[in-house]
């Protein structure tokens, strides 16, 4: 039985890293940018654990444990920052903060209008019922 070659694990790590990079660069929701950064860390973790397996020592696993620790710290700080940014602008859109750009850069303008809001479908209601029919009084026949 041949084991899965090291190259394949490294490829999966590289693909996760690249997808996370694209997500971090392209998405505008701050929480999704943060999740993409976490996905890049996952890709690095897969790499390190694969090396640890194929070199027969635990150094890669210890490194990944430290990565997980630092990622937890990063999550705490990032969520606190996102919270305070959201309180200021009332939106998670990172492009609202583009006044922080370098001097001399043109601002990005969204030209295409957003799609129209979908019409709310009214939830179904029962037709109002009529007058409650009279029930015959219960009598005992004993």
């Amino acid at each position: 039985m041949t084991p899965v070659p090291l190259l394949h694990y490294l490829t999966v790590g590289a693909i996760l890293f690249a997808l996370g990079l694209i997500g971090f660069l392209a998405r505008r929701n701050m929480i999704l940018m943060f999740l993409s950064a976490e996905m890049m860390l996952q890709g690095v973790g897969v790499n390190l654990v694969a090396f640890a397996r194929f070199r027969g020592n635990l150094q890669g696993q210890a490194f990944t444990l430290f990565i997980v620790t630092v990622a937890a710290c990063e999550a705490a700080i990032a969520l606190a920052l996102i919270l305070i940014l959201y309180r200021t602008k009332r939106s998670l859109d990172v492009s609202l903060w583009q006044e922080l750009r370098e001097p001399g850069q043109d601002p990005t303008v969204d030209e295409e209008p957003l799609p129209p809001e979908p019409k709310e479908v009214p939830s179904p209601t029962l037709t109002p019922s009529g007058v409650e029919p009279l029930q015959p009084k219960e009598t005992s026949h004993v």
Partner: protein
Amino acid sequence: MLVADLASTFHYLFVANGLYTFALCAGAAAVYLLLPRPNPYPALWGAVSSGLSLVLLGWQMVRPGSLAPEPILFYSFSVLAILGGGFLITQRNPARAALAFALVVLSSCGLFLLLAAPFLMAATIIIYAGAIIVTFLFVLMLAQQEGPSDADQRSREPLLATIAGFALLGVLLFTLSENFGTDNLRSLLDRIQAAQAKETAEEMARALGDSDREEQLFFDGFEKTIRAGGRSSEIQNLAGEVFNVRLRWNPAKQARDIEKMRTALAEFEAIALQTAALFGQLEPRGHWPLSHFSGPASNQTRDAFRRENGVPRMPAENTAYLGRSLFTDYLLAIELSGTLLLVAMIGAIAIAYRRPGRAP
């Protein structure tokens, strides 16, 4: 010179590895088509493109005939992880994207388990699942905007971001396959094994190459492939060993002595197998007494720890050994990371605290 370089690059990208390049381009097209924008492209195009890219990459990398549990589990976990990553960056609904991230984490935890790291798997599930639930609550709490919003319906520079990401991926895959790719070696090994299976001396003499010239080409390729495996002295010695074994193979071939030819072929096979086990290994340098608490030290040759298929043994009590490694080799680092957690907690509280009488 420049033209020749360009031509060889072109040949490498589009002729020798055309399917890889095409798979990467299809993946880039899929991500570009699926990224959120106000007037989205039909989702079918993106789905077809991403499916094409995954199938092509799998076609190139998966070797048929291996239906053992490990490859099956590996390929299913990795396809799940990659699909989850794609969903994470292309979903318009942030709640669904957070769930896709949970999928990525769970399937990479499956990969950790396949790589003999059960403690790390459990720790990652606990920590990331906790972080995911917190993030998920934040998404639900904060992003309750009615209707489409700028943050979710638009991408920032989707084309440039896709090109940047896939250019990085292409460079990474190129470097990895140059340093860790054993495909050439495996095809050479297949030829040697086919030669070993021959019945008569006449057939065996012709198995590595019909004419002397073809056989010379075979051995040149063999030596070149071994030398590509790294600069470590072990690998360079193995490449020299090919020449020594040829000195025994040639007279045996001339004399049509099947027993001696068998012995020489077995030696060639052993060289190829040893090279496959050493591929991409760094040079072990010096004999300083390095710590052994995390497994064999990095300046040791790992032959003693290798099984016949090239993967070393790992201790069964992963948690106990990881603990020993953390509290000996990494004692300072683990204390520092505890301090880092404390500082991050204080920092998060200080940042998010709403001071009375101030604006946000």
